[in-house]
């Protein structure tokens, strides 16, 4: 047995083995770094199949076989919005009705960069303005709107991402009122302020008129996901 092993070792092409280990290491690194970029079934991909961007969706209670994401909590009601800041900032209006309600904001690849619970929020009704970091320098955004409303400015590391609102449920009887309360949450492109509209004279009167008309349209509500 020992002689056989010695013979095997003496005949092994060690240079090829060393080369395999080096190439294996390169394949390992490439595989690990490429998975977030090529994964089609990541959270963004799964939610893309059931939603459009900049629209809030309230999910029905998670049950067997009805869950858009794996391992969702069965005792939490969720609402989500895939945001896209390419054209405009996104305004999120939400209610954290109880201390345990939470809002989590993620980048495109599921990195969580903002989290707030009802216990920490200063008020129940919140206005969050999502602004991409790259646009922050050339925009005037303040923590008070022209109408004097308080808003939280959330600087996003990427132009796209996901907002997920969690509302823990004590029992089945509480599901319906929670879903109804979540219908008031909205996620939509920010309408331009009067100052911005006046400043955009170079776009011409027609474009300005179109934007003013769009601004006066009623706000879209939430949609239930089925």
């Amino acid at each position: 047995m020992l002689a056989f092993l010695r013979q095997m070792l003496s005949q092994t092409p060690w240079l090829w083995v060393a080369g395999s280990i080096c190439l294996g290491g390169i394949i390992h690194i490439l595989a690990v770094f490429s998975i977030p970029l090529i994964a089609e079934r990541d959270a963004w991909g799964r939610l893309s199949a059931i939603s459009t961007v900049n629209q809030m969706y309230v999910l029905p209670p998670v049950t067997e076989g009805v869950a858009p994401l794996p391992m969702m909590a069965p005792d939490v009601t969720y609402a989500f919005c895939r945001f896209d800041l390419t054209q405009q900032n996104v305004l999120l209006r939400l209610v954290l009705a109880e201390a345990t309600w939470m809002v989590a904001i993620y980048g495109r690849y599921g990195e969580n960069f903002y989290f707030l619970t009802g216990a920490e929020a200063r008020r129940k009704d919140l206005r969050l303005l999502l602004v991409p970091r790259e646009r922050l320098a050339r925009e005037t955004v303040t923590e008070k709107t022209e109408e004097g409303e308080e808003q939280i400015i959330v600087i996003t590391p990427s132009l796209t991402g996901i907002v997920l609102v969690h509302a823990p449920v004590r029992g089945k009887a509480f599901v319906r009122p929670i879903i109804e309360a979540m219908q008031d949450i909205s996620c939509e492109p920010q309408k331009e302020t009067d100052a911005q509209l006046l400043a955009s004279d170079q776009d011409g009167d027609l474009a300005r008129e179109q934007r003013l008309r769009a601004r006066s349209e009623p706000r879209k509500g939430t949609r239930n996901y089925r």
Partner: protein
Amino acid sequence: MPVLLKFFAFAALSLVLGLGSAWYMIDAGTALTTTRFGAWEIWHREGMIDADPYTQARTARSGRLPVTTATALYFTARHDDDGYTLTSSCDYEIIGRSINSLWWSIALYDSNGDLIANKAERHSFNSQNISLQSNGEFRIAVSSAVKPGNWLPSGRNNDLILMLRVIRPVNAARTTRTREPESLPQIKRIDC
């Protein structure tokens, strides 16, 4: 050994080493990315914006949206305290005390991460609806047969996953950095 044979062996070995080790480190985790507390395992940089590449790859592959471990902890258990795989063929008891946090929950899934169908439509217990004993302890029975008290039905022919979610734990940093969990529930096998 002919050169062509050496080349194929070289390519096969490289692929097995590279992809196999990547799959293992993303799926099972290592001491670099995970910490074990008895039966419970946690990926300590899950959801974080500066997570390591293995954790990022795991998040993308799983399709989950975990909250950063600075604010929420997600512990999973696929084994009982003795190291045996959790299965619906056995009955278990989860014994613990209420966890000092804003909210916590223990949920039961099958090995694919899906909820297990049951007539009671019961899949989890949380800090708001669990029944505590007079000494402040809770006990959850995990069984395919009906049990009194806190009972999580485990169905039939399933391997099981338990997930403990702790939102805003009082000692999150201590738990993930110094490996001193406050007191995670025990998972005892009762009968098979």
